[in-house]
């Protein structure tokens, strides 16, 4: 029945406890066929535990995991038909690249000639067809990771599980691999679950992001949804640089609200469908790149003035640390000729649609 709905992996009320410690709280998740889903969060948030429960490497305390509509709680890992890529590649050091990639085919009754062809195709897909006879120790980190990917996809898994596969690579390589991984996933159309703590990886690669914190799912949504409309203070703070301010609702009507922010005065915010009551306490999140600084501007009704503190020059943009009264704010603005100098007073403009109202 789940097959018909196009769901590859389903978590139903899944809980993982270690003794008195709950690593993953009651979690429900549907992963659609062929989609790329990312579990994103800081270390210790339960994302890897969740992945390992899907893989069958960690037992489930409560709830059910379904793969292709079939309950797999008690199905051992070697019968789940999954491809897993580990952070440290985990290529078998005593087997050649060919034997590594062919390993899974041995257990799938694939004829020898057919297996050789599939290994060759997989190596071509990861652009390392000439490496078949090498030993893993003769490959660079990036090459090892490609071979690990080839080994995982050659068995045509129902689900591809990636456990921080890029974090052991250096920055340049990581960006290349990111694009390539996404391309390969798209070509194969294999349902993929990706675990990372790196928000830029998550935003760039995912169809859907699951933001996790302390064993709870904070938000599930497309990259745009979680970035632009964070559902909680944690999500707003974890993705990008946000200013999160305490505010009191002074007036609310028709999707717009007037908020009193201590030290800043009144700002206008879109409520995003949230019902607000006058006098209620809320938090408002504004992305650093949505604070528009104007060095020559007049302080008008929709803006306030701030003093520029430290300037973090980053080439195309600069990150400004601002002081308004005793409040610290961050702004990221494109640079026009020169960044705004330290010590200058600027006018800060905020648009109502960039203010995300969160529960206090």
């Amino acid at each position: 029945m789940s097959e018909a709905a196009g769901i590859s992996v389903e978590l139903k009320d899944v809980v993982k406890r270690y003794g008195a410690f709950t690593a993953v709280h009651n979690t429900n998740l549907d992963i659609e066929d062929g989609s790329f889903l990312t579990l994103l969060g800081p270390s210790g948030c339960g994302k890897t535990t969740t992945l390992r429960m899907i893989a069958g490497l960690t037992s489930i305390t409560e709830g059910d995991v379904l793969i292709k509509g079939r309950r797999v709680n008690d199905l051992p890992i070697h019968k789940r038909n999954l491809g897993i890529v580990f952070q440290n590649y985990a290529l078998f050091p005593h087997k050649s690249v060919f034997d590594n990639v062919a390993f899974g085919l041995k257990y799938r009754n694939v004829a020898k000639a057919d297996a050789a062809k599939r290994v060759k195709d997989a190596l071509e897909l990861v652009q390392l067809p000439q490496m078949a006879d090498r030993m893993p120790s003769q490959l660079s980190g990036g090459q090892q990771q490609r071979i690990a990917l080839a080994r995982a996809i050659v068995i045509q898994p129902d689900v591809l599980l990636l456990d921080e596969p890029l974090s052991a690579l250096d920055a340049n390589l990581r960006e290349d691999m990111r694009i390539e991984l996404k391309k390969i996933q798209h070509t194969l159309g294999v349902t993929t679950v990706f675990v990372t703590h790196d928000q830029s990886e998550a935003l760039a690669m995912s169809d859907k992001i699951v933001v996790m914190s302390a064993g709870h799912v904070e938000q599930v949504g497309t990259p745009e949804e979680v970035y632009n409309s964070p559902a909680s203070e944690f999500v707003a703070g974890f993705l990008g640089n946000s200013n999160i301010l305490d505010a009191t609702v002074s007036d609310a009507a028709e999707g717009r609200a007037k908020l009193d922010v201590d030290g800043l005065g009144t700002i206008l915010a879109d409520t995003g469908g949230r019902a607000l009551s006058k006098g209620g306490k809320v938090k408002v999140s504004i992305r650093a790149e949505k604070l528009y600084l104007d060095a020559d501007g007049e302080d008008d009704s929709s803006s306030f003035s701030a003093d520029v503190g430290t300037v973090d020059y980053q080439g195309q943009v600069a990150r400004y640390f601002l002081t308004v009264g005793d409040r610290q704010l961050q702004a990221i603005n494109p640079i026009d000729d020169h960044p705004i100098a330290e010590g200058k007073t600027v006018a800060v403009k905020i648009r109502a649609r960039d203010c995300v109202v969160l529960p206090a």
Partner: protein
Amino acid sequence: MFSGWSFIRLGTILVYVFMFAPVSVVVLLSFNSSQFGSFPMEGLSFRWFVALWDNAAIVRAFQTSMMLGALTAVISTTLGVLASLAMVRYTFPGKTAISTALIAPILVPEVVLAVALLLFLGAMGVPKSFPLLLAGHVIFTLPFVVLVVQARLVSVKREYEEAAMSLGAGPIETFFQITLPLILPAVLAGGLFAFTISFDDITGTLFWKPGGVETVPTQIFAMLRNSISPEINALGTVMIVVTVALPLLGAAAARRLSRKQ
């Protein structure tokens, strides 16, 4: 003129002389053509080695020792690998106690262990036999295998096994395809340890061996009680070759194996 270093150097040389001079005397005298197993040497000869070969008791003792050593090595290594897997890969109640019990035979004086096993089996009404002797040797070689294999297993990342299983290999296939090849150098080293310790052992063997069965060390011991025959020097030399050359060969093989990875 005498710096601290030259004292240390001199001390080191003296220690080595102290350790190896008696051994080299045995080896040297085994080639002596004289009737008497002592200096001065009269000429070079292999006659005592030939005499060894002709001495049926010694040949039988040698066969017994080889058989005992080989069986001890195989059984100890098998048990040791299984025990190490349990200790390193799983958690279960009483793990620390079992781990201590496994290593304990190294710490308990061998005489005590020997008497204890004898008394225990006596109380059970089991007579002395070759299997009992073998069991004794397994008990006190097992800790060496466990220590060596455990150390290696700790350094083999769990992910290799997890990767193999995710690709469809069951637990037994994973062990033979992945785990065993990766710990093979330690398994070989452990087996060689077990063999040489068993081959050398005299204390436990004296207590456990059934009547009429002699190993090389107990045979030498018996021969020494009658007279110091030059044959003993030759036998000593053969033992040195077996117990030194074999581990060296094994170490070389293990190094080659791990380099291939």
